[in-house]
């Protein structure tokens, strides 16, 4: 059973030793910049994939909002249970547990249900947000099946010292504040960020579920959310750096009344999440080592007095990884890693506390060939989960710079998702029962694409396209089990198949004093589920076939304005029902000025400018047109660079 893990380690160990001998004579020039580059090693796994990085201007415009708002504006498929409610992501089909959300290299998917609630993540806490389309289980492990959202705070040592603060007010009695401070020098730095939001969220909507389509206000949707993120980095000499990050988020959110209901909801959900991570990187003459440790704690308390429900669920995750990187020959890099993690959960829905131990081993080989015109990455991973080996997964990516402007790329990866602890440990009742015999879901995906980039003077144009195809086998679905008194029970019964293409175009121009940034994206997804009873061959729920995103930002001297638009086609909510297509448009205008050695930005905007009545999840109203104003102050000292 342990043979495969042993083989992987052995092969890469032998390769590494051979390469070490070849490298001993190489002169090593190690600087802090290289440490920074090493810290982004995991991004090597985006080689050959369609990865979109949200530009900094859009990040700035979404300060004071949540990650789901930002991603939705970028044309990503988001399922949101009402305004400020549970929001999950689904890339290239699949369910909410098939897209990983990774922070500082740590997969944040809850071991309880496999999901990540994006509404708990204020945009202002992160300096970099990327979306990798397609899964890659070899590096991020379980859950990275359909896509990966990568959240980072990069290059803290290089960022200027300073203080930032901002406030936002809007309809729905929305009051938000964010603040950050960064201090340090070229050796050490500390950053603290805070984001808070209080809102009644009593937005107006057209109730299409009620007789006469009355205009109503959303009820019981109040939110009180706070998040704190701390980053500290310390450099040892020129060759080592230690980064410690921690965050705490608190969310007290009422669960909004369903559109179809005359009974005002009394439900509430209280979430407290705490995470701390440590990344220690050492660059030695012949190799580099990284130690990554993280501890994540999540508490969730759902109450509904109307139904007599009070459900407390908690989980803890301990993640430990060690990675070693070695440059082989001249253009090869080898990375080997070992990981050990523990998931512990307790829930009133479990008969006992759930515990899961995971050991993993992985290795990657990156080649730079043809004078670095060709990049190739190959990876393997295996994992031992509570004594059982899951299927070996592998991935490969290729990028070929065919011409100065044209990059061709391709990738293929297998991936897996472990059953959640809910799937395994749910108590046996008359109505439902967990299934300890579940196997991991197992899938693969491949894509082919290109990037065409033209940069001429102050004009930058990019056009990229990708065709993708993916399969997910042994998809875990809860259904009444006729063999077990028709109780709801999870089983590995479905197969998911998705294919489609993604295109993205951006054009940035600087015709001083005017600067224009624009982009346009289109995603076509044909996704279906097979072998799931009568649902066989039907479209996956909440996966639109067509998604379009477009945005334009214009900066003229101290003025800026922007518009972004998204179109989402009809989505199935079950076998028989659909939600209609919708268009969303948001406008933003800003004015910046300097005073007291600080940069002030005063902004205002309109959300849902076309007053679209829409739902992201059936029965949960979303706001009609609404307004906000924002003030940001940015005080920066000279750069530490």
């Amino acid at each position, binding site marked *: 059973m342990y043979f495969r893990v042993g083989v992987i380690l052995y092969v890469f160990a032998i390769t590494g030793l051979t390469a070490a001998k070849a490298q001993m004579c190489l002169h090593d020039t190690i600087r802090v910049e290289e440490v920074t580059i090493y810290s982004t090693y995991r991004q090597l796994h985006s080689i050959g994939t369609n990865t979109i990085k949200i530009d900094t201007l859009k990040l700035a415009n979404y300060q004071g909002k949540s990650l789901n708002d930002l991603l939705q504006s970028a044309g990503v498929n988001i399922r949101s249970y009402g305004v400020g409610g549970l929001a999950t992501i689904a890339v290239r089909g699949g369910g909410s547990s098939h897209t990983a959300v990774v922070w500082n290299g740590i997969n944040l998917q809850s071991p309880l249900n496999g999901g990540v609630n994006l509404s708990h993540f204020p945009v202002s806490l992160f300096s970099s947000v990327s979306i990798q389309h397609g899964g890659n289980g070899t590096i991020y492990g379980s859950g990275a099946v359909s896509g990966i959202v990568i959240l980072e705070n990069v290059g803290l040592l290089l960022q200027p010292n300073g203080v930032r603060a901002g406030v936002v007010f809007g309809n729905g009695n929305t009051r938000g504040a964010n603040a950050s401070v960064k201090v340090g020098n070229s050796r050490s730095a500390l950053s603290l960020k805070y984001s808070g939001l209080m809102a009644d969220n009593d937005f107006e909507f057209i109730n*299409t*579920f*009620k*007789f006469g*389509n009355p205009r109503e206000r959303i009820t019981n949707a109040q939110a009180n959310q706070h998040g704190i993120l701390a980053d500290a980095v310390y450099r040892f000499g020129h060759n080592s750096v230690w980064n410690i990050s921690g965050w705490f988020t608190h969310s007290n959110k009422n669960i909004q009344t*369903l*559109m*179809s*209901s*005359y*009974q005002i909801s009394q439900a509430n959900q209280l979430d407290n999440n705490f995470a701390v991570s440590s990344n220690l990187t050492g660059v030695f003459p012949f190799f580099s080592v990284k130690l990554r440790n993280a501890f994540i704690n999540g508490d969730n308390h759902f109450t509904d*007095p*109307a*139904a*007599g*429900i009070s459900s407390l669920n908690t989980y803890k995750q301990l993640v430990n990884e060690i990675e070693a990187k070695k440059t082989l020959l001249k253009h090869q890099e080898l990375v080997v890693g070992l990981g050990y993690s523990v998931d512990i959960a307790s829930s009133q*829905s479990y*008969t*006992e506390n759930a515990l899961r131990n995971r050991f993993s081993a992985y290795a990657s080989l990156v080649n730079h060939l043809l004078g670095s015109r060709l990049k190739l990455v190959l990876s393997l991973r295996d994992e031992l989960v509570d004594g059982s080996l899951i299927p070996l997964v592998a991935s490969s990516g290729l990028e070929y710079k065919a011409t100065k402007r044209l990059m061709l790329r391709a990738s293929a990866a297998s991936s897996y998702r472990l059953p959640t602890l809910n799937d395994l440990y749910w*108590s*046996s*009742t*008359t*109505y439902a029962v967990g299934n300890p015999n579940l196997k991991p879901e197992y899938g693969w995906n491949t894509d082919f694409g290109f990037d065409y980039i033209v940069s001429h003077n102050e004009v930058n144009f990019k056009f990229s396209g990708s065709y993708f195809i993916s399969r997910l086998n042994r998809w875990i679905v809860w*259904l*009444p089990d*006729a063999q077990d*008194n*028709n*109780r709801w029970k999870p089983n590995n019964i479905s197969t998911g198949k998705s294919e489609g293409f993604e295109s993205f175009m951006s054009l940035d121009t600087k015709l001083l004093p005017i600067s224009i940034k624009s982009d346009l994206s289109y995603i076509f997804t044909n996704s279906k589920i097979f072998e*799931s*009873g*009568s*649902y066989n061959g*039907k479209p996956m*729920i909440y996966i639109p076939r067509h998604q379009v995103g477009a945005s334009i930002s214009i900066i003229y001297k101290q003025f800026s304005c922007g518009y972004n638009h998204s179109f989402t086609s009809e989505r199935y*909510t*079950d*076998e*028989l*029902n659909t939600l209609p297509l919708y268009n969303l448009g948001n406008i933003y205008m800003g004015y910046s000025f300097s005073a007291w050695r600080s940069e002030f930005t005063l902004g205002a905007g309109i959300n849902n400018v076309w007053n679209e009545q829409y739902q992201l999840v*059936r*029965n949960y109203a979303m706001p009609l047109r609404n307004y906000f104003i924002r003030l940001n102050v940015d005080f920066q000292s000279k750069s530490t660079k």
Partner: protein
Amino acid sequence: MNRKFLSLAIFAFLAVALISCEKDDKKPGKFENGAIVLNEGAFMQSNASVSWVSYQSDSVVNNVFENVNARPLGDVLQGGVKANGKIYLVLNNSGKVVIVNSSDFIQTGEVSNLNNPRYAVVVDGKLFVSQWNGWGQKGAVMVYNASGSEKIDSIPVGTGAEGIIYAAGKVWVANSGGYGVDSTVTAINTSTLKVEKTINVGYCPKEFTVDANGKVWVLCSGTTIYDANWNVAGHKPSSLVAINTSTMSVEKSVNLFNDMHPSHIDISVDKQTIYFGGGFGFNGIYNVQIAASSINQTPLVSGYYYGFNVNPINGDIYTLEAPSFTSAGSLKVYNSDGSGPKKTVSVGIGPNGVLFN
């Protein structure tokens, strides 16, 4: 000549196509002479619906209400009743009763702001709706005028007011216990709107039927008891209880199962044979003669049926399968002796009951 021939051919094709459409498409407006299937839908998804199934053929029209009224019906269609040319649809998690014409399904009224409504009955121009109310509260019977425009009264009853029926001049309400256990039936005077008597029956009474002798039969489902860690600690047994409507007392009790909990009951055309079974996790539909003192331990029809009803015209048993709450359910029609099915059609999500229109 060729153009003329082509024109004629196109005309003929269109004519045939139109005739075919006319024949195949059941136009909204006439939903009589068929079974009305109540599709509960999935909790909180507001995908409840109504299907019309022809008595004579395999024709089915799904999503009748939304097709006619251009909006979703609501969340969790728990029950329904037909009376005086109207159909009253009880939407549990929407807290409302939707009133439609039984012929064309056009909505004519609505009762809103109910708290966990379950089932309804119409008597003497009054609409009686059973409702659980909130957690920890006793149930109630809400009384409205038949058009739903005016609230008349609210009558407190036992816990988890569930099945409701009119018989012998009274409205009978099964106090199921709701989230817990109750063992009573409440009889309400339809003139005074006062509780006449509360009668102890078996554990968790849920649904009624009336036999050939005018006796009211109540199906007491029993329930599963759990300890604090969700381990099964025991069961309250299920039973069939007959109530004498004159003496307003229990006349007969037939034990059913110690650890199985059927949810539904109906009766044959001659009202001599009671059918019971179905519901979540219960395998089979059983039958028992009203004069019998024990039941046959072999089900008349095997299988997991979320609901069933007996056609009062010919005695056919309309069974309803809900394989999941994300995909279509099915209606299977069996003969009264359990043979069949002689018809199987696809209906909406989570079908739980049938009205015969």
